[in-house]
């Protein structure tokens, strides 16, 4: 999958002084599979970047292209199809259903895609250290635990590009490393790539490419 930014400038970031290396100024074109780090300090537009590429925000000038197609020409139905088959995301606010159990949150996604079987999902839970939380309501989990549920959920579908908005912000370095290894492994299994936004930490990982805001 090809992702390209041409003169993209979100309205809220217009007044800002951006570096010449910023994607908001210089643009970029990336061909996935690639593992990309998007490093920036707070307020530079990391979440805006993820929301824009995922089709949730349209308040920008310029053109974003997915596979050479301007994304503002995509219909809601096109987006829904993309989100099942090619695009996955972990949002900063996680977007879980607090009344549903951990398991229900995961099954809700998997029954749509049929991407993993139950034992595969269970082993992911165990790997990330929340195997015992399966039946617990998501709303009662700590933020770090919820973050891991959201990470697993994002992997329960095929994808060419996984967008992650500070997915480890509530995890310690050890758990973040385990989670990132899992993500990298699943990304390779899918033959896809990811963009990981971070406040400066590399999480001990070597990336193919780095973008700046």
């Amino acid at each position, binding site marked *: 999958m090809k992702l390209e930014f041409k003169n993209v400038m979100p309205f809220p970031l217009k007044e800002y002084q951006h570096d010449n290396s910023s994607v908001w100024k210089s643009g970029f074109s990336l061909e996935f599979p690639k593992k990309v780090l998007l490093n920036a300090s707070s307020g530079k537009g990391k979440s805006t970047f993820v929301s824009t590429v995922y089709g949730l925000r349209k308040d920008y000038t310029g053109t974003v292209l997915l596979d050479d197609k301007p994304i503002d020409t995509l219909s809601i139905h096109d987006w829904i199809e993309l989100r099942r088959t090619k695009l996955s995301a972990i949002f900063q606010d996680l*977007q879980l*259903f607090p*009344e549903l159990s951990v398991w229900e949150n995961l099954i809700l*996604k998997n029954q*749509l*895609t049929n991407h993993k079987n139950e034992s595969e999902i269970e082993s992911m839970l165990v790997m990330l250290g929340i195997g015992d939380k399966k039946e617990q309501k998501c709303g009662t989990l700590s933020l770090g635990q919820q973050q891991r549920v959201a990470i697993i959920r994002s992997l329960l*579908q095929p994808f060419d590009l996984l967008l992650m908005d500070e997915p480890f912000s509530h995890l310690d370095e050890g758990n973040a490393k385990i989670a990132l290894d899992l993500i990298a492994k699943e990304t390779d299994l899918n033959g896809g790539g990811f963009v990981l936004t971070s406040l400066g930490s590399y999480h001990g990982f070597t990336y193919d490419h780095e973008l700046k805001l």
Partner: protein
Amino acid sequence: MLKKILFRDSKNLQFIFATAGALIGLTALLLSLQLIMDVQSFHSNEEELFGPNSVVIQKKVTKLTSIGMNSTEFSPKDIQSLKDKEFITDVAPFKSADFKVGISEVEGDGLPHFYADMFFQAIPNRFMDINVDWDWNENSEFIPIVLPRDFIMIINYGFAQSQGMNQISEELLMAARLTIYVDGNGKKTQMIGRVVGFSHKISSILVPEAFLTHANGIYGNGQIKNPSRIFITTKDDSYGELDDLMDEMNLDINKSAIDVAKIKTIIAVVIGIFGIASVLIMLLSLLGFVQYSQLVLSKASYEIKTLLRLGYSIKSIVNTFIKQLSITFGIITVSAIAIMFFVKIVVVNTWLEDNGINIEGSSLITTIAVAILCFGLFIVSNYLNIKKTVNKLGDA
């Protein structure tokens, strides 16, 4: 699981109000519709004989008439003006026998001996909606006759007693033959007649028009030129105009003949007003339900947005809502039909029977069809509203 997410804490007071409103509205609508149709189906026996909107009109006999100063005849001009009235759909002057008629029993047929002077009148066959052979030709065995029902009353409860005669049942009178004496234009003859029916509405002795035309041709004295009674058929619910016409032309009408139509109209108007109110209640409750689903949608807006982000289609979300609302409104529809049916059978029919009113009862199919139509209207309006809202949430 979609249902669990989307209908989170939606069974609240709002839901109860919306459901109760829809149930009341739909029940009122169905009930008034059913009652209107029942009233429309109400007939007295007499009406079936001559049609519900047919009446006999004649001019009032006054003091001036008695001394020959004016006439009760309808001139051709009068008849034309009746035909010109917008609310009158059919005008049929009575044809009268232009000869003397006498009547007596046929010996051996079971009637006591009697003789009476009589007259014959005829109206066109299209008004004679009775299940007997009303056709007559020269080869017919007998002349069919329709008598006023009061006639047999007078004989049985007045005449027979004072003359020491046996009383005669309707069946006996209809089974026995009668001897008819005809005298006119210098000729006399006897014929056989038979009573084939009785009428409340027409106080006359009726024979087939064909017979009267034939007999007038042979025995007619040439005295009668214009008719004095006219049979008219009016449009539905036009008794008001008929009333005005009576004053205008100084007419005499058998009031009871139009009373049924009058009462039917009044009841239909009353129930019609109730029906209009029901339609309004129904629409109001429909709005209430649309508002309720709007509330559920806005409560679930986070869930809807998130489901769309996960890749759930708009269709699957809309269908989850519609499925749930269909079940709810399906139960409401079936309940409304059941309540309507219960009220009709147990309350209305019992009351009518207690009061000696016999209504055939119209079919339930129309009412049930209207209920299904309301169900469809409800589902479609909600479907459109939900689809629009979900689409909007997807674009946001």
